[in-house]
């Protein structure tokens, strides 16, 4: 659902008897964590659920969800790359709530399948035929939201600002979105220079530094197959953050976090640099600013720990 008609519509839009949510009313979504949030991005999972709960948004994990297939399945098998995420979408449709997604890669993959379900190409019928073989049914697209979009557009900056108890004054943050939250075009956000994360971080009191590479790709899973070039791309991302005076980089995607953080040591030895920039999820900063327990925000989970920049606010 990427067209202008649904722009700005509440999360209940498109559901039977749905009305615009009242300001301050509880919002409830089906939540698709995706595989990374159960392993490499555990801190993203924990802080997304907790921070959103503190803001009155309930993320209810979709039962028995399967891997969306990510870029790998789109590369390996076209029909399967639509059918796998479509199984999840069929289950979302059964629950009847809009879907919240935190991982950029899942977000783009689920949206890609959703777009086919909204099209009248033969692929739609093929996906439906494949789903029918496992007793699943999906007749139309479902509502999909990135958690960042929910936070910025459904919760809103006023509500966030109101609930902040630890203002992160003086913390210099580079907002790094990665590519797949912004592109191809989704319902919200500029495809090259989005501002949602900038605004959310600013509402926590943090100083958001200018970051022109905010949607330049980190290379994603190419780190496994094309390591040399992907290391150099990530070196450029760190270089700009440092040049802009950022203490830390905030991200919204497990691929970006992994490439920039777990490989930062390798980047330093490869390029003779001395970066020591923590890479944290925006939900960790938001949760911390909301006054949630520092120990539960996972700041020590990064290879480059963020703790030293945040201790003073605790």
């Amino acid at each position, binding site marked *: 659902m990427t067209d202008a008609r649904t722009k700005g519509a509440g999360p209940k839009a498109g559901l039977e008897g749905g009305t615009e949510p009242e300001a301050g009313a509880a919002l409830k979504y089906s939540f698709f964590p995706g595989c990374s949030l159960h*392993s490499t991005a555990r801190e993203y999972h924990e802080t997304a659920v907790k921070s959103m709960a503190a803001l009155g948004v309930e993320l209810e994990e979709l039962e028995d969800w399967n891997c969306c297939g990510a870029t790998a399945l789109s590369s390996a098998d076209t029909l399967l790359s639509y059918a796998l995420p479509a199984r999840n979408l069929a289950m979302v449709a059964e629950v009847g709530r809009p879907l919240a997604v935190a991982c950029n890669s899942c977000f783009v993959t689920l949206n890609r399948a959703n777009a086919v379900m909204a099209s009248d190409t033969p692929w739609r019928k093929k996906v439906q035929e494949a789903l029918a073989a496992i007793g699943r049914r999906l007749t139309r697209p479902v509502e999909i939201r990135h958690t960042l979009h929910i936070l910025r557009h459904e919760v809103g900056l006023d509500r966030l600002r109101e609930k902040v108890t630890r203002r992160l004054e003086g913390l210099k943050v580079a907002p790094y979105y990665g590519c797949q939250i912004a592109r191809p075009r989704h319902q919200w956000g500029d495809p090259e220079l989005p501002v949602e994360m900038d605004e959310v971080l600013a509402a926590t009191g943090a100083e958001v530094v200018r970051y022109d590479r905010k949607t330049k790709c980190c290379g994603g899973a190419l780190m496994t197959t094309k390591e040399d070039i992907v290391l150099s791309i990530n070196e450029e991302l760190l270089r700009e953050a440092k040049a802009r005076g950022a203490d830390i980089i905030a991200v919204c995607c497990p691929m970006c976090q992994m490439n920039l953080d777990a490989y930062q040591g390798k980047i330093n030895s490869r390029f003779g640099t001395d970066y020591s920039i923590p890479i944290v999820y925006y939900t960790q900063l938001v949760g911390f600013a909301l006054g949630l327990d520092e120990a539960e925000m996972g700041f020590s*989970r990064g290879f480059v720990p963020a703790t030293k920049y945040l201790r003073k606010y605790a």
Partner: protein
Amino acid sequence: MEQAEAKAMEVIRQDAFDAAAFLDELASYPSGENIRSCMQCGVCTASCPLSSKMTETPRKIMEMIKTGMRNEVLASDTMWYCASCYACTVRCPQGISMAEVMYALRTIAMKTARNLSTSFYQSFSDTVRRYGRMHESDLMIRFALRTNPLSLLKMGPLGVRMLMKGKMNLMPPSAIRGAKEIARLYDKVAEMEGGA
């Protein structure tokens, strides 16, 4: 008609046929419908963060597709460098989804090519088929066995640090309840594609 001329005519017709067939093949993929409207402006190449590493740039690949150089296109390294960042796609003035063209080329090449990338994507797919979800150690073992088993030693230190940070699961995930459903979905798709 002289024999040489007849032969030349045959080559001309065959080339035209090949070019049209390759374009038809790619246009039949989802989001492939605009592929014929490429005007060689090169915005895709200029926008691509990885084009400098490719032997053939995205713009050049599009021209090769148009001229029916199917074998050369599929043998190129271009599509294996695509990170699916869609920078080309949102900027293309002709509405071509280059990122989707790259996916389409990969899926076609997957049937015959063997390289690091095809091994990775196949391993990923096999892991998901088995568990219904990703399991990093399972994926890395499959990938190493397909490529270079010794590479596991190289990946070891990072794996251990991930484990210590609680960022990786040593034990395989218990397969999701719908794992059998996932396997059935794979089989059904294979059957549909085999019958196509």
